[in-house]
């Protein structure tokens, strides 16, 4: 069998399997979004964090595999888990549903990117304002810069530390320094 035929057969198999699991993917994605909506509405932290094993080891893995947004949701849940463990203000504060949670994450990520790319004074100023008025924990900044689409460097970490030092305590600053040292 030539390579082209092998490729076509393997692709056909992939899409056949995808078709077979389509409903399960949609069901797991619905479960994740519904759980986020209800748990954020009622501030039910336990239900919120139960999504972590659901996505990592349960049926939610299907959504993780096929739906990009679910990866960011898992990232946010990890941030929240760390924040709660270390008694920091949780990322979901003021978020009432999945959409507002995602919007907070995306706006924060956009601000970090603007600080990194520094395309203009205005762009950097807007980003700094956002980070100043929408407080982020050390964990949120660290997870975003380590795991999302941004090539953070020491210059960026320096700029972030300068802005966030307005509301980070000494312990936070120290933690951020130690987490980002050597990156």
């Amino acid at each position, binding site marked *: 069998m030539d390579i*082209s035929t092998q*490729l076509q057969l*393997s*692709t056909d198999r992939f*899409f056949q399997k995808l078709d077979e699991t389509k409903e399960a993917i949609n069901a797991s994605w619905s479960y994740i979004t519904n759980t986020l909506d209800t748990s954020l509405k009622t501030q039910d932290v336990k239900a919120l964090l139960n999504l972590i094993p659901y996505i990592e080891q349960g049926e939610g893995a299907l959504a993780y595999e*096929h*739906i990009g947004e679910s990866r960011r949701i898992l990232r946010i849940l990890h941030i929240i888990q760390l924040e709660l463990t270390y008694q920091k203000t949780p990322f979901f504060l003021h978020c009432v549903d999945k959409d507002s949670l995602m919007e907070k994450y995306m706006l924060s990520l956009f601000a970090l990117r603007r600080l990194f790319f520094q*395309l203009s004074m205005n762009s950097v100023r807007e980003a700094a304002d956002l980070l100043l008025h929408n407080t982020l924990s050390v964990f949120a900044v660290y997870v975003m810069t380590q795991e999302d689409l941004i090539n953070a460097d020491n210059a960026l970490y320096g700029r972030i530390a300068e802005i966030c030092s307005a509301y980070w305590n000494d312990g936070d600053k120290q933690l951020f320094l130690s987490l980002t040292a050597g990156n």
Partner: protein
Amino acid sequence: MDQRKFCFILCTNNDTLLSEAIHYISQLIIPAGYTTELLAVTDAKSMTSGYNEAMAASDAKYKIYMHQDVFILNQNFLSDMLSIFQSDTSIGLIGMTGYESISADGVMWHAKDRLGTPYKRNAAYLPLSEYRYSLSEDGYQSAALVDGFMMITSTDYPWNTESLTGWDFYDAYQSLTFLLHGHKIVVPAQRHPWCMHDDGGVLNLTNYNQYRQMFMRTYHAFLGKHYSEIGNQKQTTLP
């Protein structure tokens, strides 16, 4: 047609992404004597219908069809693009990522000869502040297909709304339309990516296969072919 005008065209369903994409567009340096406009289509039935609607509404010679999750990083994007179009009038379409051949299974990214530089994590690029594209030193490469996250055209051809009623394969179909009309498709060599495509790292392929099957039936003769084997067939095989 306004020969000195660029039009950014986006189909959008997310204000947060759109506003960030517009922020990066607003940072671009506009070449002297040129103007820009932006058309955001908010209630498109499909990518092709949204793009057709915007295409008909704009008199700009240069149209930049882009996804709402694309952020243009190269501030000289417009003049660099212009330098490419002006270097060879047969260039009709520029992409940021493309492929020299069409994969035998119709899946664009399965072709082994990818062109362009997508923005990736942990990649070592030249610092953006130091980056400047040079047509003579960096150049560009010809492609058979370009990825739809960014497609820049210098001439208008209708997008295929009859066959493409969703959000997939409009890029492959439109690329072939350009090739079959005798245009070249190129992808600039980018020492720093010209833009970032933040698609979340996973493609939603749940509706992809029906259009792939259709593409394979329509363009069966071109599967596995290099761009150089397609461009000379002109309009005789246009569906």
